[in-house]
């Protein structure tokens, strides 16, 4: 059976970051399908819609209106239909409390948004390469990425 094109979902209220993310993703792999939602609520609604193709990986910002990433993460991990999808925390925070809490709540890795697009490019390349392989293992290898440290 032919493999479906990978689907990346970005949940982020920041439109600049969304724009950059999509552009980098297209550069990394033009076949990847990009989905986005601007808060946790919208993401869950989209994921739970009947006809949706579930993403291979979810990038989740933490600070968003309506439903933030922390709450969205626990909803995802408590939903039997969604809990298998690896969640990458993708945020500006590098607060130790945010890192430890989200990792405990089942996030696959924690990435602090890099200001250098090359770094984003590298991360997305790595994830795209492993999307049909051992993605969780690859993400666990990144574990916690902070460009400042």
């Amino acid at each position, binding site marked *: 059976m032919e493999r479906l094109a990978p689907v990346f979902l970005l949940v982020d209220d920041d439109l*600049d970051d969304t724009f*950059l993310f999509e552009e980098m993703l297209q550069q990394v792999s033009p076949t990847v399908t990009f989905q986005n939602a601007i808060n946790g609520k919208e993401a869950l609604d989209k994921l739970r819609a009947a006809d949706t193709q579930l993403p291979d990986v979810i990038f989740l910002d933490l600070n968003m209106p309506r439903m933030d990433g922390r709450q969205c993460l626990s909803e995802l991990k408590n939903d039997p239909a969604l809990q298998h999808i690896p969640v990458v925390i993708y945020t*500006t*925070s590098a607060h130790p409390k945010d890192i430890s809490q989200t990792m405990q709540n089942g996030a696959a890795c924690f990435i602090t*948004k890099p*200001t*250098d*697009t*090359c770094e984003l490019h590298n991360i997305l390349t790595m994830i795209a390469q492993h999307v049909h392989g051992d993605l969780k293992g690859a993400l666990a290898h990144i574990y916690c990425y902070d460009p400042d440290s």
Partner: protein
Amino acid sequence: MILIVDDKQENLYSLKALLRLHLYDADTANSGEEALKKILKNEYELIILDVQMPGMDGYEVAETLTGHSRSRDIPILFLSAVNIDKRFITKGYASGGVDYITKPFDPDILLLKVKTFTRLYRQTKELNEIRETLEQKVEQRTAALVEANKALEASNGELQQYAYIASHDLQEPLRKITTFSRLVSDRFLAGIPQAAVYMSKVMAASERMRKLINDVLDYSKLSDTPKFVPCSLDQALQDALTDLELFIREKQAQINTAPLPTVEGIPDRLRQMFQNLISNALKFSRKDTPPVLNIRGERVAGKSLSAPVQEQGDYCRIYIEDNGIGFNEIYLNKIFVMFQRLHGKDEYEGNGIGLSIVKKIIQRHNGLITAESKEGAGTVFIVLLPLKQPVINQPAELP
């Protein structure tokens, strides 16, 4: 008013007449029981009490009165014609009397005693009233202070929260500036050196601002409730040196350290204190001479920067000595103030926060800091830290 208690009517009359004659207001009671009733109702400044009475005798009355707060302070003067033996007199004092007069008595002496005891009573009463007022005032003030303290804690917490949010929100647009500048630079400016220079200036400025915001954020975090633990100053110093490794190598600095004691403190803050002091010394080094830093400490006797050395002293004095450009000591107060700089930004880098953080950390640790310097002759920073921190009731941690 004076209360005379006697079961014999004639005694009451004569004594009342005597007191009236000398302008004392007097009331009478025929028995111990009646006396107690009257004392409950009226206010007396002296009780002249017969000892032997049918029913309740004088001793019993006195004992009852001294057992009640309302009547405890009223002086009791025993007056007896019958019980003049020493043991009766002793018993009178023991039961709460202030004096014991036997009959026949000298009216002049009695009057003098009445005068003395009523005056004493009035003074005692006044004192009690003042004491009560004072106690009330102290209570009110204490309550007001507790309230003010709570409000202060709350506003301090709010301020920290505010600083944190402000810093975080300030970082956001800055991150975009950096990201997109870098993108433009990488993609479009390869062949246009002049534009690349301009863009690199934008990025350098953004980086400086990012550091500045981080420093302000650090400073605001210093207001957290301290949690003191035993903390090796040697370790804090080593950690600081590790963090500064690149800078030290770049400056070709030589750093000599001598063993330092362990103090009660916040390890990460003490590391930051050393780091800021050392990086300050490296920044303000002479252009022609590689920096040499000497860091050493000694135990001293008291909380004073000039306290005498004492092997088992409760304080530790640390010297951070450099061979840098120094400064004029008239600016000593300026160097610890936030955003104060003694040099132009083009001469020496820095944002004027480092030493203000050092000062705040040391204050947090109930310590002192000063510096001795001469222009061109290097600087010695002198830090005094207590080995033990006072035990405080730490408020419950905010959620």
